């Protein structure tokens, strides 16, 4: 353990902790934009700067090791001044258009501007570069007018997905996130997993499928298991007004043991079939080669009567049930129980082979 003093209070943290980890472990919040414990550290946003007695420079607490006897200030006048300047510099390159932003209410940049009272930037004389919003892919909106250059997307692409589709291009103020040769994602190694969307702290990368359907504070998040392949990823269905409006993911291993928040394109963007206008919403009975709508009672009675009759006429083994690799365990249990106990046959199978 190391013991240090933060804001006048003695705290302890495991040896090897960074100052930020030590602070958060002890309930002291330090603002961060580029920090992400699951990704390679960058130390570049300079929001988490702290003052350490005896050090001439501010330290980025996310990468600075906590040392015994350190005396740290996380909200001193100078630190707050520096953070405000950093926020103002970012505000000067940001379109500051929260009203129409998907991430309104779920944006760290917005939170910190609020917290540090940054209502406008003093550094906007030269205006800002306006980036076109023109990547035609149907999954990910890329609006670099809202980008704060934290590079979490770049690192998620490399560290989680290992696709390496994006990186920083250009230098200095012209630096931006881009694919090789600054093209569309579809022409890069991008697999549209949306891990970049997951880690983006602002509104620069958002889901096109969810656009306009509901903001974070309006939705309820229901933790569940993905309906696609057999990996069993945990995801969160975002629900607003009894409709699924999006998918997000919980990154805690305690809730997401298989995928730790990582998803693929199907899990993250392939959910709007739920509300497809093609959904069957009422039982159908075929008459003279055409389907007609029927009530549940009518349809179920018809099925029960016909199955009963066939069972009596042709025997149980003339019937079979295909249960499903997509329905729940409970339903599969019932389906085979139904086949065996009600129909009286072992003719039950599903598409495990297909």
């Amino acid at each position, binding site marked *: 353990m190391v013991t240090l003093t933060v804001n006048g209070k003695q705290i302890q943290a495991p040896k090897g902790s960074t100052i930020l980890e030590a602070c958060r472990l002890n309930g002291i919040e330090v603002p961060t934009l580029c920090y992400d414990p699951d990704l390679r550290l960058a130390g570049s946003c300079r929001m988490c700067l702290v003052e350490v007695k005896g050090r001439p420079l501010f330290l980025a607490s996310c990468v600075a090791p906590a040392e015994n006897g350190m005396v740290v200030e996380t909200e001193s006048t100078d630190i707050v001044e520096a953070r405000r300047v*950093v926020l103002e510099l970012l505000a000067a390159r940001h379109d500051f258009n929260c009203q129409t932003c998907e991430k309104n209410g779920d944006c760290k940049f917005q939170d910190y501007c609020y917290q540090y009272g940054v209502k406008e930037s003093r550094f906007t004389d030269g205006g800002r570069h306006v980036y076109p919003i023109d990547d035609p892919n149907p999954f990910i909106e890329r609006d670099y007018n809202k980008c704060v250059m934290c590079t979490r997307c770049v690192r998620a692409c490399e560290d989680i997905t290992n696709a390496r589709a994006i990186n920083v291009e250009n230098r*200095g103020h012209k630096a931006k996130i881009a694919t090789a040769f600054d093209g569309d994602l579809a022409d890069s190694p991008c697999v549209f997993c949306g891990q970049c969307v997951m880690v983006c702290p602002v509104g620069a990368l958002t889901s096109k499928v969810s656009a306009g359907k509901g903001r974070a504070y309006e939705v309820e998040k229901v933790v569940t298991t993905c309906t696609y392949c057999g990996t069993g990823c945990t995801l969160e269905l975002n629900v607003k007004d009894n409709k699924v409006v999006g998918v997000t993911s919980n990154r805690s291993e305690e809730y997401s043991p298989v995928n730790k928040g990582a998803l693929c394109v199907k899990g993250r963007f392939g959910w709007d079939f739920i509300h497809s206008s093609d959904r069957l919403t009422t039982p159908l009975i075929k008459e003279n080669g055409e389907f007609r709508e029927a009530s549940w009672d009518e349809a179920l009675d018809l099925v029960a009567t016909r199955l009963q009759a066939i069972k009596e006429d042709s025997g149980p083994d003339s019937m079979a049930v295909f249960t499903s690799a997509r329905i729940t365990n409970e339903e599969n249990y019932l389906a085979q129980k139904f086949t065996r106990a009600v129909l009286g046959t072992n003719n039950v199978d599903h598409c495990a082979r297909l």
Partner: protein
Amino acid sequence: MGKEMRIVLRNADKIDPNSIDDYIKAGGYRALEKALGMERKALIEEVKKANLRGRGGAGFNAGMKWSFVPPAEVTYVVCNLDEGEPGTYKDRTIVQKDPHTLLEGMAICGHAINSQKGYIYCRGEYPYVVEHLNRAIDQARRKGVLGNFDIEVRMGGGAYVCGEETALIESIEGHRGEPRFKPPFPGVAGLWAEPTVVNNVETFANLPEILNRGSEWFKAIGAASYPGTKVLTLTGDVVNRVAIEVPTDTTIRQVIYEFGGGIRNGKKFKAVQIGGTSGGFIPESLLDTPIDFDSMRGIGATLGTGAVLVMDETRDIVDIVTRIAKFFEHESCGKCNPCREGTFRNFEIMTKINRGMAAVQDVEKMSLLCKVMQKACLCGLGQAAPGPIVTTLQHFRHEYERKLLA
């Protein structure tokens, strides 16, 4: 003209730089032989005792730096020849005039940290230096003078930030030239995450003579806290635009007037910027400061790389600083927020001032931005970039005020 003292340039213009035999005849590679006969610890101790401090700009005790390298199977010696500071050409001069003194110095370091591999990271604008070095390395290999130490030259792509040691390492690894956060320092985890010593050309070039003549000899030269000599490159409105090597207790005034021959065309002195583009501007009143690292720091200036840019009375300070701001706006790598955005906004405000369109509030907000950048930026580039603005606001504020709107 004043008298130089030549240690790193001891062979300059005396031997054929293309001939290893000349170098050996002049006493070359004897220091390495001596070093190889020493215990590593003793060798590091000797360099530490000499108090040879880094000649690249940061002024860290070289022996001390080496002593941080933990025992490891693979370690690297990296020489910083990314001489990107405008007005600086000392490293190129050293290498062009006496390449083997660099190679010998690197090999000595190699023995000290048990390294078999050295890299020279050469500025992309010096292709002929790469050729020149490769020729020298080839000769040394064939003579076998380097023992089991080998050296490879890598060429930069023209980014100023790659003079920063961790950005330089990233570049050698084939990545974007962006600095890493420290710690870990390269001494612990540097090139390909292995312990790595990065030193400047001039630092390495001092080593053969320190080994030959001993740490006591070296320690007695120049300023006590920063002993030895310093190669300076004189540019601007000075009569003699030359590279010189002088003891570190020489004053700025001596450099300009005794070695530089004074101001050109009989004009009056206005300012001198030392250490490269990020160096502070020094007014007449501080010219009697010795050039050593600590004295320079004492007046809010830097020794840096030893570039000496002299400006006469006709020069427009605000205009010059605007150009400097443009340089940093262009060279910021873009990794950390305060530097990426700050260098851009500094240039924006400086341009506004220079065009006579700024008010005093603009100067104030620029001062605030500079103050934050100096403490908040990730690497030396961003931390030092505001230096010219800050020092000219301090010493030449009237030149700014003249251009401000009422």
